[in-house]
């Protein structure tokens, strides 16, 4: 495990993330980690008290975490959303578009190439939880 990359300005959340099961058992935990097959919607009643949600990618081709992230952001979650596991350079931009703002990759990621990946596309075709305006909005104001 290498240092997490954070795209947020707030302080790093110190409390370690617990599993979904133990989170649901505890009245005051503020950080949780969900596995690829777990239902992010179970967290919806607790979003106000959560500061960190970590979503695991067991292999980069398992795309369930993208939907989990979108669901959390669509429901108003504003805390840190961290992608962990098999998180690779070429998926970061899509992760960010789905609302991830921190990455804890298994192997280090070149910071410069990451910045390049984020700024590569000037425009996007879809509305997602990153709030970038899609091309159709530019066309029609």
């Amino acid at each position, binding site marked *: 495990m290498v240092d997490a990359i954070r795209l947020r300005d707030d302080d790093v959340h110190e409390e370690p993330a617990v599993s979904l099961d133990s989170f649901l058992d505890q009245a005051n935990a503020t950080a949780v980690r969900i596995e690829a097959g777990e*239902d992010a919607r179970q967290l919806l009643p607790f979003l106000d008290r959560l500061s960190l949600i970590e979503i695991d990618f067991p292999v*980069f*081709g*398992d*795309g*369930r975490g*993208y*939907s*989990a992230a*979108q669901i959390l952001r*669509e429901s108003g979650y504003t805390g840190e959303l961290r992608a962990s596991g098999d998180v*690779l350079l*070429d*998926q970061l*931009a*899509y*992760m960010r*578009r*789905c609302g991830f703002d921190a990455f804890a990759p298994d192997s280090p990621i070149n910071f410069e190439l990451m910045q390049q990946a984020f700024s*590569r*596309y*000037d*425009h*996007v*075709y*879809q*509305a*997602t939880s990153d709030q970038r305006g*899609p*091309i*159709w909005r*530019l*066309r*029609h104001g």
Partner: protein
Amino acid sequence: MYQYDQYDQKMVDTRVEEFRDQVKRRLAGDLTEDQFKPLRLMNGLYLQLHAYMLRVAVPYGTMSGKQMRMLGHIARKYDRDYGHFTTRQNIQYNWIKLEDAPDILADLASVEMHAIQTSGNCIRNISSDQFAGATADEIADPRPWAELLRQWSSFHPEFSYLPRKFKFAVIASDTDRAAMRLHDIGIQLVLNEAGELGAKFFVGGGMGRTPMIAPEIRNFVPADELISYAEACLRVYNRYGRRDNKYKARIKILVHELGKDEYTRQVEEEFAHMNQLGLNPPVEELARITQYFQDPPFDKQASDDLNLSDPDFALWVDQNIAKHKQPGYAIATISLKPRGGIPGDASSAQIDLMADLAEQYSFDELRVTHSQNIVLPHVRKSDLYALWQTLDEAGLAPANLDLITDSIACPGLDYCSLANARSIPLAQKISERFADLGRQRELGELKLKISGCINACGHHHAGHIGILGVDRKGTENYQLLLGGSGAEDASLAKITGPGFTEDGVIDAIETVTDLYLEQREDGERFIDTYRRVGMARFKEAIYG
């Protein structure tokens, strides 16, 4: 035809740069093949038996002459001078070098084309009716809807690592020329009681080893909710589709295992949420796109008269010409199934010629069909004879549309690492055996489809007659299937019994077609007779 604006152009140009970087990192060893694979797949690049294969998207099968000519250029410059038109209205090149791929993508981008998401576990090129905008039997042109979906699905961040590939087809006619219900999502445009256009959704069709016909899950989705409804369908799949077994990962398995009603319930619940998120482009966007699909400037005085005194021309007209919505015009299908040829292949010279003919005779438009032919959608009837003469000289005028030699065949063992058996040589032999056009016409409409293995790239499940290559103790063996259809009367073909050798399966085809000729009643096609008479009778004829 749709034309890119500055935004669309920028997107594909950026993709070319991005892929150039990725190839550079791969060649430098900074990316492992495992890491590179999903990236190249999202740009249409497969590694095959002998070389890389590149699949280029032809959105909803529509192209201009200039775009077609670029396809010929690529065949000439980067491949072995030919290309292969596919069952999903795309084109594939079989002999591509990795180093050349970025340049090819750049060439494509210069004519508003790309290979984005033509493979990989993402939303693939959207297919449609090859007669769209030309046929009288549609309620609207489906292509603006397909273009709206193309843009929405391109670079979709949430749905690029799905459990498996995902294919859409959009049609707007009760006659299904696109095998709509054999897609992951099939959409038929319909009118509601208020006369508004909307989308009927069919979800969970597909071929492969577990073929399924998609059930209808919603009879009307309004235009301004199309995207959020599609998002809901995909999100349920992305979250719950199986990832433990590649062969059970398609959405058809999810819909089947949950049951259509439960899947629909989950989609509707997700939709109720997603429809509030502002995901839908305004109706002005669909209107903007629709502007590009206006009718070409038809000559309203064009005559319906046709001189059929040349008997070969008359045959071609009878077989390959379809009725156009505009009097005085016709829809012409160019068959890429010459006697003994490879179904769907065209040389660069033929591609160039078809591009010229589109410019000269068809308002600069061509279509690729799901049965691997090319259509000139808007030809004046008075030009047909000249068109036919030119095609005939170039070997592009087989008068066999929808006949037994108009077969579909997958690449099979000649190219494909998954194959059990060869498909192309079998298609060629069948084409020779049934070469007599009189005999073919006597047999009438007969959809013959060949796959070299259970993955069903050759649509054998949807063939009136299907052939499936299997491996029997290390030798190639072919099973015969009967009774499938990919059209509006969709059905799945059934295996007749034990398999055959290559010659044996051709003999068996003759046996079943002979039985059909003997048993048919007035006006019945092969498939109709089969459905009436039943499998048992056919089995008996084949196996005695």
